[in-house]
């Protein structure tokens, strides 16, 4: 059964519903001493949580066109750089650049609206192509346009990116280059 196929998606959703209904039906039918009953109920509860989360993850994976496309990809991605390792050791290489802070330049007042109805649509949800008119950003034909370029800047830290360093050819001091330093990356 394919990881990104409809049958598997339906199976996971059915399992989530079944786990929920099962918890309702079985809650007061578990037998044994109090400790066993409580543990059984915790088991019912947590298996429902787990199965539901799996159903959502599978659906998101499918909606995104198959981030993890096959079972083999799944085991490879889990074993090669398990999520725990990601969380514990590697945070994307911007961590070295911004001291662990996300560059939050999208603050409340940012004029981030697209101004293009139909353009702003979350990828997952699978609506029709949000291409109301995606074609009005034609760049100039190769002309240099340097005015007002704002290099990436870390929010409120002293770590200035090398944008102004005038042509550093060596690996940057911020850890974006990692020759000979095998480290799990978080690239998509």
């Amino acid at each position, binding site marked *: 059964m394919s990881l990104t196929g409809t049958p598997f998606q339906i199976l996971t959703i059915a399992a989530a519903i079944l786990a*929920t209904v099962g918890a*309702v039906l079985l*809650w007061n039918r578990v037998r044994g001493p109090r400790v066993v009953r409580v543990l059984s*109920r915790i088991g019912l*509860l947590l298996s429902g*949580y*787990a199965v539901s989360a799996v159903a959502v993850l599978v659906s*998101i994976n499918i*909606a995104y*066109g198959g*981030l*993890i496309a096959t079972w083999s*990809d799944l085991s*490879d991605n889990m074993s*090669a*750089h398990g999520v725990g390792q990601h969380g514990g050791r590697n945070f994307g*290489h*911007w961590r070295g650049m911004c001291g662990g802070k*996300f*560059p*939050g*330049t*999208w603050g409340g007042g940012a004029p*981030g*609206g*697209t*101004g293009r109805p139909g*353009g*702003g*649509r979350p990828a997952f949800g699978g609506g029709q*192509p949000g*291409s109301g008119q995606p*074609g*009005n*950003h*034609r*760049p100039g*034909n*190769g*002309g*240099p346009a*340097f005015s007002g*370029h*704002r*290099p*990436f800047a870390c929010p409120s830290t002293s770590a200035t*990116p*090398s*944008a102004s*360093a005038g*042509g550093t*050819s060596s*690996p*940057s001091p911020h850890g974006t280059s*990692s*020759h*000979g330093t095998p480290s799990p*990356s978080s*690239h*998509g």
Partner: protein
Amino acid sequence: MSLVSMTFRDVTIALMVVIAVATLLLWNRIPGPRAVRIPVRVGFLILGEALATLALLVSLNISYGGLVVSWKDLIGAQSTKGAHLSGQVGQVTLHPVAVATTQRLSGHQRFTPAGYGGFIKTTLTGVKSGITSQVYVWLPSQYTKNPHQQFPVLELLHGVPDSPGAWMGPMNLAAHMKAAISSGTTNPAILVVPEVTPIANHTAPDDNEECSDIPGDAKLDTWLTQDVRQMVLDNFRAIDSAAGWGLMGYSTGGFCAAKLVLQHPDRYRAAVSISGYYTPESPSLTQDTALADENSPQWLITHRRTPAVSLLMTASAQDPIDPPSECQQMINAAKSAPLSRATEVQQFIAPYGGGHNQTAWEKMLPTTFAWLSDRLSAPVSQQSAQQGVRQ
């Protein structure tokens, strides 16, 4: 509260625990008739399941370095507003397209509908790489309307972990291409979406080939730039010369596009890297310094005489994984390296471009299609192609 803050993650986990405990304690203490008690119990369960799922998604998002960085990002409100091109212009000229009589190598492939609007797919066994995997192709409507024309080709490279489906599904590649063609910003082009990680157990960020030929291992460069390319030439009316071929990729695919256009100017004229990076990251490459260097756009642009090809790097100011500074480093390197004067190296930084996700990258497509179209050959009639004259 920020979507990627530890506080938000902890709040979702705490709420989940509270609901779980409440469910355990209150299950048999809910007052009212049975018709009320049952729905309340179901409500408790579903609320807990929703919170558990949310906590997991928030944790995953944070642990991957922030794929979706804000609520605006989540609802798809990224834009290219305020972004503009900058960089080094280079000496790229569009030479007349000389198309040799195509020599069929891989032969005819069988294509079947791919399940994504308009795309067809085939299973290709690469003659030179030996790799067998899927390749997806989309033909513009002009392809059938003008049966005597040869068309430019865009080869599209997905990220890692990911699959060709991302280009065709959530990023709506074909819909954007159609819109760009009909709005006149982009010449009709054939879209080719190959599998970038076709080798089993080499599909994770830290074990894939990053589109390179790894001695003693897989030949991903050969697969992408020779086998897939030749298959397209053998089966479609595609322009043979480099002037008709462009590369575009996101994230790891962006790294690949930047690298491959610098390595193979005889096959590709232009490339776009959407939120890519420019030094190899997979240990498959980095454990061998020489191999890593020869496959590093940053190293190549600094140390080698790079060809008269065009490279556009896009980035979003909010993307924590591949921030705009990586593009700037490439441009700085290009400007300071005398040997890379011929190469056009440009960046397009979106102040409100969103995080490291497909919805954000989709917003870049109109810009990148137009940019590529400006640098690649338009469709040529086969007659004039044989005379080596660009139409």
